[in-house]
């Protein structure tokens, strides 16, 4: 197993933390992982993205040109990364934010209304976990248990009361994708 993905959106949507949680969960399961964030001026108000690679074998390069999966949470990111998905790959996008949907026919596309669903469960910030859940239901790279263990490490202790709602969001995301 070797999954190369890009997660991209606006700063503040939880793009980097989604990737970090996935990477951490990969490490919990003793997989080889790399998490490479954008850290440039785009972090200060524009688009943010991170590359995550989860693999059974050693990760040669954190720098890759094409991706097995792209998770995009805003329009500029869709425009930037739709063409970078490998033929036969997967594209998951947040359908409340991305108004012009992807057009490629050679990849599998999933639209997830995660922002609305996050509002419904009462915490807009769980949007990223809903998306992550949707992704994991199609590509079960790691277990929900490992994600929760990762979250308990990635989230500072003062936010640990938010673990249950994150788990709820994760499972909701898994049920949203057909």
């Amino acid at each position, binding site marked *: 197993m070797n999954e190369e993905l890009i997660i991209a959106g606006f700063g503040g949507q939880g793009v980097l933390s989604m990737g*970090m949680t996935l990477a951490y969960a990969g490490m919990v399961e003793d997989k080889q*992982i790399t998490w490479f964030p954008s*850290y440039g001026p785009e972090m200060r108000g524009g688009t943010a993205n991170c590359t995550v690679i989860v693999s059974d074998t050693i990760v*040669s390069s954190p*720098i890759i040109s094409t991706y097995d999966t792209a998770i995009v949470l805003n329009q500029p990111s869709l425009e930037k990364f739709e063409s970078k998905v490998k033929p036969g790959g997967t594209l998951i996008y947040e359908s409340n934010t991305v108004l012009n949907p992807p057009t490629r026919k050679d990849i599998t596309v999933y639209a997830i209304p995660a922002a609305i669903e996050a509002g419904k469960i009462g915490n807009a910030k769980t949007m990223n976990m809903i998306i992550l859940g949707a992704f994991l239901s199609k590509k079960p790279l790691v277990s929900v248990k490992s994600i929760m263990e990762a979250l308990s490490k990635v989230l500072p202790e003062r936010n640990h009361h938010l673990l249950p709602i994150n788990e709820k969001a994760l499972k909701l995301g898994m049920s949203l994708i057909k």
Partner: protein
Amino acid sequence: MGKKLLMKGNEALAEAAIRAGVKGYFGYPITPQSELLEYMATNLDSRGGVFLQAESEVAAINMVYGASGTGTRVMTSTSSPGFSLMQEGISYMACAELPCLLVNVVRGGPGLGTIQPSQGDYFQAVKGGGHGDYKLIVLAPNSVQEMADLVYLGFDLTDKYRNPVLILADGALGQMMESVEFPEYNVEEHFVDHSSWTTVGRENGREQHYITSLHLLSEKMEEINVHLQDKYKKIQENETRFESIQTEDADILIVAFGLSSRSSQKALELAREQGLKVGILRPITLFPFPSDELKHLANSVKGILVVEMNAGQMVEDVRLAVGSNVPVDFYGRMGGMIPQPDEIVDKIKDLYKQVKI
């Protein structure tokens, strides 16, 4: 080995330095290196050392000079423009033979440039950097694990040779997260007694110790230069380190260090899938440079491709090593751009055509 942790390269490097018993850290914040300084600010004082944020890089390197003069294990870290500011102090330390660990998490230049990763400081790192004839021992990690491992090696080498050691990383290695395990390292076992030269106060009429880089008599200054050159020769003979990847049957040899060696490794996988016999020589020490191994490989490969994140710097050392025995091509990206694996594969194919395999 301990347990696996998920860390940024900058953080792994800082943690390794604390575990290696660093007693003094003096630095000034600059992106993309700042997490290293922040980690030291949070952790070093409570773990037996002194963290001090200097008022500038010039001040930081001179604090390193002073602390090293007492035989204390010391370091500093910065990124490209800050490293330029430190050059005067580094030259003084090379002459005065003061041990210290330097870290340059390189960003794109010239000038203030960009905060994105680059290898544009290769020449500055391996050819001296400041004024006068001197060399740093230069170590080039290519993973978060090596950001930690090379710290231990760096401290051992700087003590062994009384020569500043530089870890040359880049913004991506500093910012990315991978799992890392910290090896066992017993600080006492690695202790080197520097008391024969340190300036810690004279007791019981022992001879005077005097640390300086100023010798106005040319005869004396030449003597010191000869001694330094002898030392660099010894370092070249004993401390060259590199990694060879699938070089045994390679037609085309990629030479790359640091992050560009990771892109190159992916390119190697892609090229091998297409039946192209590609190998990689990755220098881990940039000074001393693995010239002998390159000379040796030049006998069996048909072409060499050097991949760097600059306009072509290490390629000069590769050409010096192999001469005209084999064609040497270059692929580089600049200003914070990273060579992509597919671009490197295209370049490999070009080289294949050129050398008519």
